[in-house]
């Protein structure tokens, strides 16, 4: 079957029910989506499909319809997404393992809601688990990024 990941086309030969996460990681070598739980409880595997955040560990590859984007499409060192800039300014990451998923989830929040309240952030971000306890900085970074994006 055919997949488009971060603007690149791939042809893969895998079982229909293989989760997208393992196609990305083990077949295509795209390792920024992380394996944390396998049952959509932690959010570390979050990618966008046509801009919508999805838990790739629970998404059978045959059900993927649309373009897959990972954090690589969000921003780069030379041109970071405002969320990534805020993540750096606030030094959010501790171990960092959950943070690609956190940022992908937050990117969707800001795309839909340029000025999220505390309650909006709580509602959208609580499916992404962080075992290190970076939540206060995640909240602060999202607010900073939202403000930066509203200015531009």
């Amino acid at each position, binding site marked *: 079957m055919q997949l488009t990941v971060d603007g690149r086309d791939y042809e893969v030969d895998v079982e229909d029910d*293989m989760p997208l996460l393992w196609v990305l990681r083990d077949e295509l070598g795209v390792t920024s989506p*992380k394996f*944390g739980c396998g049952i959509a409880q932690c959010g570390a595997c979050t990618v966008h499909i046509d801009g919508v955040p999805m838990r790739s560990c629970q998404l059978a590859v045959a059900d993927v319809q649309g373009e897959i984007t990972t954090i690589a499409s969000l921003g780069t060192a030379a041109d970071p997404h405002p969320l990534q800039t805020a993540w750096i300014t606030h030094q959010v*990451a501790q171990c960092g393992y959950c943070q690609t998923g956190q940022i992908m989830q937050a990117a969707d929040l800001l795309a839909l809601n340029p000025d999220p309240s505390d309650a909006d952030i709580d509602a959208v971000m609580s499916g992404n688990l962080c075992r290190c306890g970076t939540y206060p900085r995640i909240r602060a970074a999202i607010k900073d990024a939202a403000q930066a994006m509203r200015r531009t």
Partner: protein
Amino acid sequence: MSRLRTIARRTFLIGSAAVAGGVAFGIYYVRRPTPNPLLADLGQGEAAITPFVKITGEKITFIVPRSDVGQGIMSTQAYLIAEELDVDPHSVELDPGQPHEAYFNGKIASNSLPFHPLDEGVVPRTVKELMEIVARLSGAQFTGGSSSVSDLYERLLHAGATARETIKLAASTRTGVSVSELGTEDGHVVLPGGDRIAYTDLAVDAANVDPVQSVDLRPHAQWRWLGKPHLRTDTIDKSLGLQDFGIDLRLPGMLHATVRANPGRGGGLGAYDASRARAMRGVRSVLEVKDGLGVIADNTWRAFQAAAALDVDWPAPDYPATSAEMWQVLEEAHTEANINSRLRDDGDVDAALSGAEIITAEYRVPYLAHAALEPLSATVLVEDDQVTIWTTTQVPSAIRDAAAEMTGLDAEQVTVNAVMGGGSFGRRLDHDYALQAIEIAMTMPGTPVKTTWSREEDMTHDFPRPLHLARARGTVSDGRVETFDIDSISPSLADNWFRRVFIVPPGPDTLLVWGAYDQPYEIPNYRATGYRAPDLIPIGSWRSPGACSNAFFHESFLSELIHEAGADPLEERLRLMADPISRGVLEAVAEMSNWSGPNIGPGRGRGIAFCHSHHVPVAEVVDVTLTERGIKIDDIWIAADCGTVFDPVNAEAQLVGGAIWGLGHAMNCELTYENYAPIQTNYHAFEGMRLYQCPRTHTRLAGKAPHVQGLGEPSSAPASPALADAIFSATGRRLREMPFNKFIDFV
């Protein structure tokens, strides 16, 4: 300053060794030189100045041997070297290095000796010094016990200063300008006229000068980065999604494996049928490993699917099948015969308890998984004359030695590449997952094999925090706490863990009573007794081991006594506390939270707790609101004193992260055993704290303590008793067992 430090400083000599095409310097420490492991692999025109700094014509490399599992120690190690060397740590290569005796940890064993942490007497000092020398001679390399900065910071500052002065000497020899006229900045030697020579240009010259014998460290006031906010070396990659973890490793021709082991720990392997698994797509082999079966496939998911398809009979292990039976073992272990330690026995507790009105309470904490977000994994390549391992580990030298024994190779033929870890919380102080990966890769010589555990395997085969029971008695009179007597009952964590990976230190198990016997209160009649229960399931170090349970027992009971006495929880703690550093954090948290007692209005509650663990006093105040749907945690104030702070931004992160860790597990986590295994096998049943539950956090580091101490663990211990105290204040209900959501809901 301890005597050991004085000796170490006095004998801190730098020697040199001539090697082909480069120069290297070894540090002589105590009575025996520590060899420089970088010497063996030096190429033409390369200099290894101390075991921590290597310079070639192209780049500068720092060896940062303590493992980073999220606590930021890679960055702090780099900044410690960089501060004295005058080079931007973001511009150098950071290499964890190979396990080597030069990178020994002198603190982790000596910190577990049965002495009060505030006792600077001759006997504890001498025995701790001896234990540090034993650790040095054994070359044991560990990351743990919040010991990295206290153990390493002087060595790393010296490494940076030694390298700087040696490079200046080389520049002086080349240019004829005297060393005193040379400066350094941003990786360059600066000549009086302003001309600059890059350190990398001086690598070869450094081979031809006599090494600098002694260096002075800069006063803190001159620090450019340390003590001020600075950018962690891993922050940018982790924010851009570029950080690779062990589980992300990819090698040409690599296969993917997983394990399905007996859910009953140590129960071995019974009869099994692997025919269905072997026939599945992508499966290369099914093999027997210790206590279970391994599956090698061409994709991790295929390996998981095949492992799930194995049909296995699991023999019963030799411990009770259920949590209820395990609790019974602990209850029955509460007898005189099982007394393991009585490291505090002030006044006359027995006399004080006879005749007076006695207040009693019993407390319990459950088994808890580490459940780091990155499931355990290791990649191994076994070849004829060498074995190479890539994994995240806190005990690289133990993996090297085990790999040598398993393969019949020499330790020198084993390479252990330490990789950035997605959390650990103490789990990677064990190396079972790496040894399993070696077992599996040994069946495929010449092919790299990455073994990854499923989340379910990870939680079922943890070495969890132990089940722990406490019974306490006390008396109050005239508004004061008079008698405090606590019995702490659990299997021996020290014996379990040290036996698996190191040597069991002499004397009683102090971890069993960490947080119970060593608190800086001066209660007139004050006793703490450790009871060693029989081993049950194998247990391990879990963020703030010992103290994470005992602080809940000790502080909860102290709060109960203070309540009975009718005193203020803060004022009575201050009255009982003589240690000025510890008083300082209590006073700080009171000021930060505007403390005026536990009653903060209808439907609300405020709690306080203190714990001195890992040589760091921490006081925390928690505010909660009782809503229609349950308890909401509003705020937590955290005050601590770890002495000098090197990275204030990360220090705040560790304080906050530790407190959230303590609160989250107290709210809703436990491993409950049925049929020899935990019924909680993934995050749906073991959540911890999620973002919507996270309180506002407020921190302060007092900076008055005379020692440098780490902050990875200390803030986690007082969080659960502070929360229980706040819930009592809001509801009148004293929770004496974790997790609290067995008794009350949280929103």
